[in-house]
């Protein structure tokens, strides 16, 4: 079971993790307060592999990396949204949090649906209503970064050239 947790449009970095918790960059610490003001039950009940389903312009606001780190720390598998704020998009990729763009899935998934995501192909399957959606497959380099657990870890064992090799 990979439960979907749904969020609205223009979700900003302060709603993901309020600024007052940004005194640490420890993913597990941050995860304790992720979405605490808009969905406090998330941090308590999220299970590894659950999926975040967000609205347009997900992650807008500040360029701080705490927001994607907090989501990754909560062990969510990925985010699905129609679009992302630019710096959040980069930050998420660089810290190894996979993000998919798929407006059809976002429009159709309701909270609590059991959603299976194949990151390599971009196939999203909603086991609850048996609908299938197709996100654009993530570029190889994004998967490489995600596999390594972020760009910093990737660079410990690779050359940067390996990213697009």
């Amino acid at each position, binding site marked *: 079971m990979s439960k979907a947790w749904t969020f609205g449009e223009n979700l900003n970095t302060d709603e993901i993790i309020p600024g007052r918790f940004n005194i640490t*960059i420890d993913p597990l610490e941050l995860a304790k307060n992720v979405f605490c003001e808009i969905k406090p039950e998330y941090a308590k009940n999220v299970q590894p592999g659950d999926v975040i389903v967000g609205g347009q312009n997900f992650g807008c606001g500040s*360029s701080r*990396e705490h927001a994607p780190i907090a989501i990754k720390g909560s062990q969510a598998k990925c985010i699905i949204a129609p*679009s992302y704020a630019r710096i959040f*998009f980069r930050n998420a990729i660089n810290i190894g949090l996979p993000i998919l763009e798929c407006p059809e899935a976002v429009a159709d998934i309701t909270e609590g649906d059991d959603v299976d995501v194949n990151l390599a192909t971009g196939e999203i399957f909603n086991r609850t209503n048996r609908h299938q959606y197709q996100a654009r497959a993530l570029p190889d*380099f994004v998967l490489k970064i995600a596999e390594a657990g972020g760009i910093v870890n990737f*660079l*410990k064992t690779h050359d*940067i050239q390996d990213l*697009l090799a």
Partner: protein
Amino acid sequence: MGTLIEEIFSRKAGRPVQAGEILLLDVDYIMSHDNTTPLAIKAFREIGKPILDKNRIVLHLDHAYPAPNVLAAENHKKIIEFVGEQELAHFFKQGVCHQVMIEEGFITPGAIVIGADSHSNTYGALGAFGAGLGSTEIGVAWVTGKCWFKVPETIRIKLTGKTQYGVYAKDVMLYIAGMMGMDGGTYRSVEFGGEYIERLPMHERIVFPNMSTEIGAKCGLIAADEVTINFLETATPAKGPFEAFGPVNPRYERVVEIDVSTITPQIACHPDVDNVKPLEQVEGLSVQEVYIGTCTNARYEDIEIVANMLKGKKVNPLTRVIVTPASAQIYKKAMNNGLIEILMDAGCTVTGTGCGACIGRHGGILAAGERALTTMNRNFIGRMGSPLSEVYLASPATAAATALTGRITDPRGLLEITNK
């Protein structure tokens, strides 16, 4: 071949590239400041590899400098120790990072400059690619000299006609922000062109790419032309030869055409940068602070406009009027030409250089219930202090007119008197 961003990236990649491609490119300079450098140092230490080319790293102390509190002081200490340890040569603490990057000649046509600051887009004014990134990527770039980019689609903003008297680049850009909205340029390269831009001097051009951030753009670009090259040769130590270039047979996602002659002075009202209105709709609104500063509008020419308008007059006694020159170079020129004295005689407080009150850390913080009219680029809730304060954005001329009355005031009447 292609849009300006495709041209810049193609030159760097050594082959023609198109929107949608993902590239790993060499970056010319890697910029960060006191807010963002500490996390970059952390990423750098974790990677555990040496800096590739120390000459490409440029560090600034400007956001909260000199330190207004212990936390800022700890940041500065950490950064200064790092600069010493790594023997970094490009270290500045006399102005707003983006202004200093341009003045010191780091920005040249075709250069790729990344910065851990969302207004790194500013560099597009000189035909360079400038974009803001998170701190981790800055640490990564120190080690690798490279950064990945997706070549963005382009929105062309074609500006024709001539502005009316008393209307400045800031008014035009605020008008654009109001029209495009805060996410109107998300992921896009926004190219500013047309006869209006071509005729514009560099200090006014800078406003457009600087504020392309406010419409969500990845970068804001202006083609490098004679104005650019002349500026680089006369106003910066950058080493040429420089090449003028622009888009070649571009395919744009969208072209937005605006006749600037119809635009009047504009104000971005609390609480959003796209909440833009013609000045007359908010004229007379009282303000407790007028702030002239930041990477958007605190260059010499901006300060000159303000000084000319305030010469021999007194600002409203109940209004705090604060001027923060963007850099030491600007400050010195304003001082040598008597502008600082004019401002002080008029009752302005002239502060040291840097970001000043822009992020509400020091140098003009707002109390609850207060309203400021400023020459800044953003007006997020609480940007300049209390979350219960309001920030309005306008041109330096509007700021000067407002300083005299303590109410939002149209600069045009006053400009006529001043220039007679």
